[in-house]
Structure formats: structure tokens, C-alpha cells
């Protein structure tokens, strides 16, 4: 195609660029508004240049609001869920890739259902199950805990406790992660493991010294997807958490938005910006591994 460059084609190219630029502006605008409003001493609903620059909004998020706590809660629950997802999808993906069991295909498509069914539809039964589990855990903890009962239940409870949220978040992310790891291990020849067996590696050594290094790009991709998606989840923490000490960032943002007296756009924009940063960082890491993972297995 080199050298072919009629005026007509030039016009098409220009049109394509203009369209892309308009779409980009349209997508970027909310972010620009948010970034500007978060440092504006008098932020408004409309996009405008800040009256005067200030970090007041950010300081308020952490000083007057419970920002540090929200951030820590979000990070803790989402990271825990991500670690859980990485471990389970690593082991499970390997098993699903190597197994010849007849139920493998039905199982793989079955778990996709978890992903495609709207989680809102499952909320009531899920809540019911978690409530039962929570009562069970409660009766287990009560005789042991004494006056620390409430504090411990906030850790290991299924309703209004970290454990429940972590497990539910992880469950939501597992199907995709399992698929990613299954497909990834499909691309890792069995020869590597067999070579390691002949080299005298035990099962643990094979996992630790051969399989994990080989699977690292896949695990990173699965983990980052899980992190980004769980980080963005709003509904589950909203339903499952009620104690103010347990609130996560999106819930904090939501509650700040709902306050009756007046809407503080500067504060909201600051919370939202803070909320965005980990996702952006995760994505910039993810990019590197995604290319490697989806352009086909291990090169050696």
C-alpha cells in the first residue's frame, strides 16, 4: 500500500482522525472535570478553570472525613480478594488445563455463568446464604471471644465483616481468572514439568522453581484483572457492610454525594480522584503482561 495516497484517501484519514479526537475528548472530559474540580477552591457542577488552586479538598478527605480508613478498607479487602484469586486460579487453572476429566468443559462454561449473570439478581439469595453463614460463625466466635465479639466479627463475619466481602469479591473474579490461567497453562508444554521431574525436582520444587516463574505473566494478568474489577465493585460493599469503620472508598464517595444539605463538588472530586489512582496504576502494570499473556504462552 506504500505510495498510494490519493486526495480522497487523505480526506478519509482526516475524517477518521477528527472523529477519534472528538470521541477522545468526550471520554476524557469527565476526568478533566474531576481533576480540575478536586483542586478548585470553589468547584461547581460545570467544567471551569479553578478560581484558585488548593489541596484543601484532599486534606479534608483525610482529615475531616474518614478517607484514610476508607482507602485502607478498600485496599485491604480488594488486595486480599486478589491474592485469593491468584492462588486459586493458579492452582485451578493448572488443574483445568491438565485434567482430562469429562466434566471439564461443562465446568468451565458453568463458571462463566457466575460472570455473565447480573450479580444484582443474585443478591437476595446471596445475602440469605451469607446471613446463615454469619450466624454460624457468630455462634462459633461468641463463646471464645467474650467482649471482643463485635471486633472479631468485623474481621471474620460474613455480613458486615471483612471475610464475607473478601470471599464474595474473590468469587466474582474467579471465573475470568480461572479461564485466563487455564488458557495460559494450555500454552505451557508439559515438557517443562517432565524435564524438571527428570532433573529430580519434587512437586513443591516444580511448582516453585518452574511452574510459577513460567506462569508469572498469566498470574499477573489474572490478578490485575481481578484487582481492577473488584476495586470498581460498588454494590457488594454497599449491601454487605454497614458499620462506618468498614466503609470502603466507593461507599464513602456515595455517602458524601447523598448528604442532604448541599453537594460539595470539590470534596467529591477529590475522593473520586483518590479512588481512581490505584486502578490507573494497576492498569499500567497490566498492559505489560496482557500483551505477553494474550500473544501466546511461554517463549523459550
Amino acid at each position, binding site marked *: 500500500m506504500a505510495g498510494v495516497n490519493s486526495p480522497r484517501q487523505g480526506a478519509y484519514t482526516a475524517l477518521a482522525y477528527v472523529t477519534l479526537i472528538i470521541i477522545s475528548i468526550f471520554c476524557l472530559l469527565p476526568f478533566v472535570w474531576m481533576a480540575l474540580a478536586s483542586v478548585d477552591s470553589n468547584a461547581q457542577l460545570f467544567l471551569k478553570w479553578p478560581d484558585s488552586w488548593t489541596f484543601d479538598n484532599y486534606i479534608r478527605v483525610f482529615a475531616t472525613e474518614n478517607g484514610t480508613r476508607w482507602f485502607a478498607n478498600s485496599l485491604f479487602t480488594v488486595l486480599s480478594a486478589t491474592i485469593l484469586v491468584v492462588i486459586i486460579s493458579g492452582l485451578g487453572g493448572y488443574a483445568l488445563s491438565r485434567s482430562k476429566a469429562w466434566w471439564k468443559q461443562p465446568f468451565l462454561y458453568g463458571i462463566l455463568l457466575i460472570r455473565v449473570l447480573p450479580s444484582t439478581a443474585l443478591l437476595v439469595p446471596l445475602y440469605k446464604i451469607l446471613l446463615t453463614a454469619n450466624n454460624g460463625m457468630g455462634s462459633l466466635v461468641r463463646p471464645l471471644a467474650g467482649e471482643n465479639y463485635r471486633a472479631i466479627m468485623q474481621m471474620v463475619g460474613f455480613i458486615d465483616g471483612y471475610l464475607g466481602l473478601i470471599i464474595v469479591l474473590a468469587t466474582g473474579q474467579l471465573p475470568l481468572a480461572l479461564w485466563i490461567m487455564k488458557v495460559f497453562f494450555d500454552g505451557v508444554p508439559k515438557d517443562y514439568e517432565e524435564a524438571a521431574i527428570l532433573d529430580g*525436582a519434587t512437586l513443591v520444587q516444580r511448582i516453585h*522453581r518452574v511452574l510459577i516463574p513460567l506462569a508469572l505473566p498469566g498470574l499477573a494478568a489474572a490478578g490485575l484483572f481481578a484487582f481492577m474489577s473488584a476495586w470498581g465493585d460498588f454494590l457488594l460493599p454497599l449491601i454487605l457492610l454497614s458499620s462506618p469503620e468498614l466503609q470502603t472508598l466507593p461507599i464513602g464517595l456515595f455517602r458524601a454525594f447523598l448528604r442532604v444539605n448541599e453537594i460539595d463538588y470539590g470534596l467529591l472530586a477529590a475522593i473520586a480522584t483518590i479512588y481512581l489512582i490505584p486502578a490507573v496504576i494497576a492498569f499500567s502494570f497490566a498492559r505489560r503482561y496482557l500483551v505477553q499473556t494474550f500473544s501466546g504462552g511461554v517463549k523459550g
Partner: protein
Amino acid sequence: MTTPMIQLSGVRKSFGAVGVIQGVDIEVEDGEFSVFVGPSGCGKSTLLRMIAGLESIDGGDLVLNGQRINDVPPDQRGIAMVFQSYALYPHMTVAQNIGFSLDLKKVPKAEIAREVGRVSELLQLSDLLNRRPAELSGGQRQRVAIGRAIIKRPRVILFDEPLSNLDAALRVQMRAELQKLHQELRPTIVYVTHDQVEAMTMATRIVVLNKGRVEQWDTPIELYNNPVNTFVAGFIGSPRMNLVAGHIVGNASTQHFKANAGWMVSMDGRSLAGVVGQQVTLGIRPEDIRPVASAGEADMQASIAIVERLGAETYLNVRNGEDTLLVRAQGDLAMKPGEVVQLAMNHAAFHLFDQSNNVIAA
């Protein structure tokens, strides 16, 4: 005779209902270079993997150096293997790849370095020790894979089609290097290939496999000169032996082979009185047929279908009725397709096979 290094007796293996290895009995002497050949899917890799311990053994005995090892774990057999894909660990350097098995055994770092140095010198890898497999050429990867196998000083090294990923020139070079390595270190080698030239040039003994059974098992030249059945006859030798269907005609004193296509050739010097009238297959290698000038010297005449002039020799693809024969003539012959050629055969080099494709002894 000393005990063989590897001894297989009645070894079997099935995948589901399919019998992939159907009773194999062979022995490999200490220091021997033994080659398994056979067509694709005949079970060569499976048999090799059974010796390595990567595949379970359903029946029979696998004996290594006098000890039955059917149930000994792979890493305790003292056997190393070079994979067709090389299977070099991509996240490790050449030195780490070669030294991995020692590292797993918690051998001190200094000793690992010394051993890696010894092996890499032997394989001319000393300058590449800090590279990763992705930064190596095919031949270099191959050598690393060999290095990883020999560092353990194994009693037996198994190779599964190690040269099939290399181009033709490199393959010839690696073939020579492998032979040199074998002469220097004298390990027992079992080598799988479906390339019969590789088998002929490297093996001290060849095992010809077909459909999970051993067809014949002997030195390369013995297989070449005395194939026991049409399968081995057709498999060993390049270009392949001509196999012509026909029957024996004659009486108690003289017999001829009469091809189904009609031509006849005398079977002088053989006592074939017992098989007169029977369907047989005549085997004759391309180099044992030569074009001659006069019909008087000739055994048959045929028309030329294809001529391949290679300079030092000329391949003629000739037809007589239904039969197609390949002739490998010395020197350059300026012949043309369509010409009729007189052909003489070396009667001493005839192979004759009966209806069940087994050789009829001379």
C-alpha cells in the same frame, strides 16, 4: 556376556483400549548407541518415555543394569532425557538450566559452577552461559539441552527426535557432534527418530518399530543386508527398496520369479522348489539394478518415466506394465523420459518374502 544396561521383556502399554506398545523385548548393551526408528505413531516416544519413567508400564519388565525399575521414580533411575522441544526453562540462563539438577540436590555453588564449566566446555557453550534460551540459535539450544542431560553423569541418555527442529545442514553437524560426544563419554544412548538416515549413521544397533511391535532389532548393516520382512526392507535404506508382487514359477530344478506385470527373472543359486506356485514379493534395492547396453545382458526392459540427474548418480523411475521400479545408476546418464531401457539386476542381492511378508531364507 555382561548384563545389558537396559532390558525390556514383554513390555506393554495401552492408552484406554488402544494397545500402543504390544509386547516389546529388546536389550541395550552398556555404552551402546541404540536407535528406535519407525513411522509416525508407532510408539517410539511412548516406549522411550516408559524407559524414562514418564509413562507407566502396563505389563512386562523394565530392567536397568540388573535391577527391575518398573516402579522406580524417574529421578532415581539415573536416566536423563533430551526432549524434542528442548524444554529449556525460559526464565533461567544457560548456566542455570545446565546446573538446575545439581542445584535441586543442594550441591555447593562452587561445585555447580565447576561442573557447568566442564560441560559447557565440552559442548562449546562457555561464551553463552549468561544468555537466556530465547537468545540462542536452534543448534545452541540443542547443545544446552544436551548439557542439562549430561551434567548428572547419567548411565543412560534418552533422545526423542532431538534434531527434527533443525535445518538440514545443522542436522548433519549435530549428528557428528552427538557421535563425538558418544565416543568421548561412552554413555548408553537410546535415540528416537523417524529419519532412517539418522538411524543408519549413528546407531550401533537399530530397533525397527511398527504399530507397537519390534519388527527387527540388529546392527544397521545387518538390517540393510538382511531385512526379515517387507516392512523393514521398505523402511531401512534410502531410496527405498523396490518391492514387486509376483509368484515363483518353474520346476524342481530351476525357478523364476514372475512379476504380476508379466516380466520374469531367474532365481539362480536359490533352492526355491518348495515355493513354486506361491505368491511372493521380490525386493531389490535401487542400487542393485543397472542399465545395460544390450538386451542379451538384461533381465528386463522398461520405459523411463522420470529421470533425476544428480551428477554423481542418476535416479531412473521406470515402468514395466503395472510395476514401477527405482533404479540408482552410477554416474551421469543422459536419458530421457519415454525411452526404453534394458536393465540388469544383481541376483545375489535379491530379497524374497512370502505371503505373510516374512523373508524366505536363501
